[in-house]
């Protein structure tokens, strides 16, 4: 009977003999009856069996885990199930993308302001250099006129 002497949770619930090669036994141990009960309620034992049979053995564990997750979501929210979770996450993604776009725009603004500030400084220094040169010439002229 499955992996141990007691029938697996699925065979217990379905009230049948748990064969040695029971497809459910590895994934629905007898100490967790709720796990199979919930997937059976949402998907049905025969659908789960068909799903598992179509998968290679090494992927069945993950498939059972995701089926249990989906079944739990559907029991918690009979209208939207997992789709409710997906909608919520999609909203989060959209909000983050807006925040990211705004932050990147802010960086661009800062960079542009910084460039224009540097250009302004360079321009001002250039102007002040020209005025110094101009004044120096004036001083030379005035000193020459003093000794003249």
């Amino acid at each position, binding site marked *: 009977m499955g992996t141990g002497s007691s029938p697996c949770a699925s065979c217990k619930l379905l009230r049948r003999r748990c064969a040695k090669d029971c497809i459910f036994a590895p994934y629905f141990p007898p100490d967790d009856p709720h796990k199979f009960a919930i997937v059976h309620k949402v998907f049905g034992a025969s659908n789960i069996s068909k799903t598992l049979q179509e998968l290679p053995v090494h992927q069945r564990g993950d498939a059972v885990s995701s089926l249990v997750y989906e079944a739990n979501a559907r029991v918690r929210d009979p209208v939207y*199930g997992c789709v409710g*979770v997906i909608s919520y996450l999609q909203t989060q993604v959209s909000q983050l993308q807006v925040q990211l776009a705004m932050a990147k725009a*802010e960086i661009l603004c800062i960079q542009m302001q910084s460039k224009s500030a540097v250009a302004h400084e360079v321009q001002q220094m250039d102007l002040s250099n020209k005025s110094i040169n101009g004044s120096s010439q004036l001083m030379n002229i005035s000193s020459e006129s003093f000794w003249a």
Partner: protein
Amino acid sequence: MSTSYSNLSSNDSNPRRCAACKYLRRRCAEDCILSPYFPASLPQRFACVHKIFGASNVTRMLQQLPVDQRAQAADAIASEAYWRVQDPVYGSVGVINLLQQEIYMNQRELARTQAQIAMYTAQQQPTEVTNFGPQQDSVTLERTFLEFNHFPNLF
């Protein structure tokens, strides 16, 4: 599930049968609970749902809901069935994983960008070297120095 084989040949071309009843090869009653949500024009929608959930489970789930919530529930069930058919291992949980990864990457990118903003903002703070006043910048200071040192006779 009632099946009316005597009507089968006449109902084969019956346009009023919903996709569910067509698939299940049964007469589509006037009060068929699946008919509003599984129109004949979308046969694949019911085929997916039936493969994953089964017609009786879907019928039971919809019956347990108020009528005004059944359309959303049918859409959600159809979406979950579609994702499970596309990805038999993870189904809609695979979609959830992808979205969680995308959220994580966006959060990291946002944190990095905000750190850059903080760095730029800190770099642009004025330096505290002067007693000339809080508003003076380095360009104005330099001009003042030049004026004082090069035009002594004018003062």
